[in-house]
């Protein structure tokens, strides 16, 4: 290893230690004792955590140098977009059905299996020669199947279990994981299936004096996910459906009384979450064979991202989805074995400081 990892870790510890100290000092001394304004606590801790993140990133940049830093970012582009899509799906379902959906990854896997079958069996027979077109068609087919499956799950299972605790619902999604992972080999057989590559061309370009390479399919992946997320967020902000989702998220019963069709909204949310997962899985599966457990680590990272950003907001989890892969891949250079553990530990620390996530809002409780 040609990086000075001892020096890196020393500085890293110093930065983190100082942040922890600063946080405790600000929280316990400045805000509680001097200012006596608990409302300012969230702002202060947000600032401190963001400052810490910036300091770490700057420190990583300084120790890695321009080339490795930015090349890692470009390499991780696909990972970030996949994680952002998966996390958004999880958060969407959390908001409408108040449960953490463990079946998100399995839904996505089912979708990508359908995409693989479509590209291998059906699309080749119709004579589509362009790989790009084939990929797009199979991706859309997979997303549609995942959408329908999500809707079906909501209609037949989740809707009927409205009065069950959120842990119970969580277990239902876990049962779904088992069912889908049992069904996949039955339906799709045990032969190796792979999805078509959108493109396998690497693109080279020169920037700030270095020659960087990006694979083209990562670029496409980024375009697709950014496009999807922009459309989704616009819809959430400006359409009636988005208003309905926000209303359902805050209180389902009241929303229903106010004339919001909560059934349609939860069904659509499940469908959209499934479709987002399908697209994410399709991009993750580029250039490899499919397996039933391919989305598990993405799923865990998605939960981590969502809890880091805060389940109660939509933008927070996306920020989380940026932070986790970047940190984990940059730390890889200094500790190739412990990168994930370190990132999870950092997430744990941040969440301890801010229990509701970076962008979460506190809901007052009445006694």
């Amino acid at each position, binding site marked *: 290893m040609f990086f000075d990892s001892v020096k890196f870790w020393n500085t890293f510890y110093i930065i983190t230690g100082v942040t922890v100290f600063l946080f405790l000092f600000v929280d316990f001394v400045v805000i509680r004792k001097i200012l006596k304004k608990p409302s300012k606590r969230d702002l202060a801790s947000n600032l401190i955590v963001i400052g810490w993140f910036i300091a770490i990133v700057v420190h990583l940049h300084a120790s890695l140098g321009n080339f490795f830093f930015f090349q890692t970012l470009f390499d991780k582009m696909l990972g970030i977009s996949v994680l952002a899509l998966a996390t958004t799906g999880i958060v969407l379902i*959390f908001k409408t059905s108040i*449960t*953490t959906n*463990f079946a998100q990854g399995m839904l996505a896997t089912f979708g990508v299996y359908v995409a693989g079958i479509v590209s291998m069996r059906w699309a080749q027979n119709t004579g589509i020669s362009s790989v790009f077109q084939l990929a797009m068609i199979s991706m859309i087919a997979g997303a549609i199947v995942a959408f329908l499956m999500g809707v079906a799950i909501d209609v037949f*299972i989740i809707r*009927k*279990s409205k009065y*069950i*605790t*959120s*842990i*119970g*619902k*969580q*277990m*239902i999604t*876990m*049962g*779904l*994981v*088992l*069912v*889908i*992972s*049992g*069904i996949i*080999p*039955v339906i799709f057989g*045990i032969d190796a299936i792979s999805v078509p590559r959108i493109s396998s061309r690497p693109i080279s370009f020169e920037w700030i004096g270095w020659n960087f390479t990006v694979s083209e399919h990562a670029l496409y992946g980024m375009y697709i996910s950014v496009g999807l997320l922009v459309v989704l967020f616009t819809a959430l902000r400006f359409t009636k459906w988005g208003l309905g989702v926000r209303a359902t998220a805050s209180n389902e019963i009241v929303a229903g009384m106010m004339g919001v069709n909560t059934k349609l909204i939860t069904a659509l949310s499940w469908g959209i979450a499934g479709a987002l997962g399908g697209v994410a899985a399709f991009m993750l599966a580029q250039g490899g064979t499919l397996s039933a457990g391919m989305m*598990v680590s993405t799923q*865990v990272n998605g*939960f*981590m991202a*969502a*809890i880091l950003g805060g*389940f109660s907001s939509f933008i927070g989890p996306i920020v989380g989805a940026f932070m986790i892969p970047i940190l984990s891949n940059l730390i890889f250079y200094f500790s190739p*074995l*412990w990168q*994930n*553990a370190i990132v*999870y*530990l950092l*997430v*744990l620390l941040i*969440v*301890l400081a801010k*229990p*509701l996530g970076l962008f979460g809002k506190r809901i007052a409780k009445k*006694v």
Partner: protein
Amino acid sequence: MNSLSLIRQKRIGQLKSLIHHPYFGFLVVGALLLFMQGLRAAGVNISITVMRTFGLTMIYVIIGLGFSILLGYAGLASLGTAGFVGIGTYLVGYLTTKMGFPIYIIIIISILGAILIGLIIGFISLRIEGMYLAIITLGLSEILNEVFKNAVEFTNGTNGLNMSTIVFFGTFEVINIETIFTALVFILVLVMVITFNIMKSPTGRAMLAMKNSESAAQAMGVSILKYRLMAFMIATVYAVVGGVLYMTYFGFSIPSSWGLAFSLNILAAIIVGGSRSIYGVLLGTFMIFGLDMAVFQTINVSPTQNASVAAFIARFPEHTEQLSEFFRSLNGAIPTMSYIFNGVLIIIVIMFYPGGLYQLVITLKAKISKLISKVMKKVKVYRYGEDR
């Protein structure tokens, strides 16, 4: 009432009070398990797989009982069980094979370590609640899993750690599965009794109060800090002790066993069985782990290996090919069938019986007794006519 019948009633009452004693059921469970082992020793054909299934299920029941206190009584959800069980397995593996510690000292060390871990998570749980806590514990479990994978000198990495001997009173002894099975039965009964006592004690009531209404519990003097820490300590101690037992019984531990799937399975076992009853945990654990290991993984209907299937095919000479093809594909699908079966079971039980299978059993019992009394009434009217 005369003296004679009074005495007779008293005798029946004594018998009844013995049967209705809360520990009686636990002793029966232990006796049945020992009886099974005795049958096997006497030469009845019970396969080693079935015995091993029961042994492992007992360990999972111990882990599940701790979890049921955490979830059913304190109302805290954790997905970190797998990590703690893993700690137990590696602790006993490392301390025995590398350091030569005797088993009882290891159990004391593991209990102390578990209390420490429980304290840490308990403090975390004060700040983070509900689903968030579940995911944070999941993160902790993932961190532990990374440790299992990467701390090669302690855990032998992804190759898995083997342990074939335990140290007992200063001498290395080769693991004898039969003896450990017997020990497991006794430990299981002890753990069930202890769990029952915790559930019925003031501690259990305080935990339930905390689960139902935090503010009422606090107004009644229940310290949230104390009981959360206690719940987590109990659950972690059970999990780590379960890990120690697993390693002593099974003799092999690999990081991939201690992933998210294991934690979710334990959670599923508790919820399917019923999170507030000991028999529910027993039932649920057997449903989730036992059936899979004892039934689905032992069924073999391959026409070349199963004689009765081959004989069945031979009876239809004109369809031999289709039939053998059918059985071959069925044989391939059976392991995944267990997944589907478990999944459907979980979904149906939670949707229709939120109290778990135990609730189902109780409802069924009530319904059956109602049905019987109805039938008896009909029979009476048939035999004796309507009451005048």
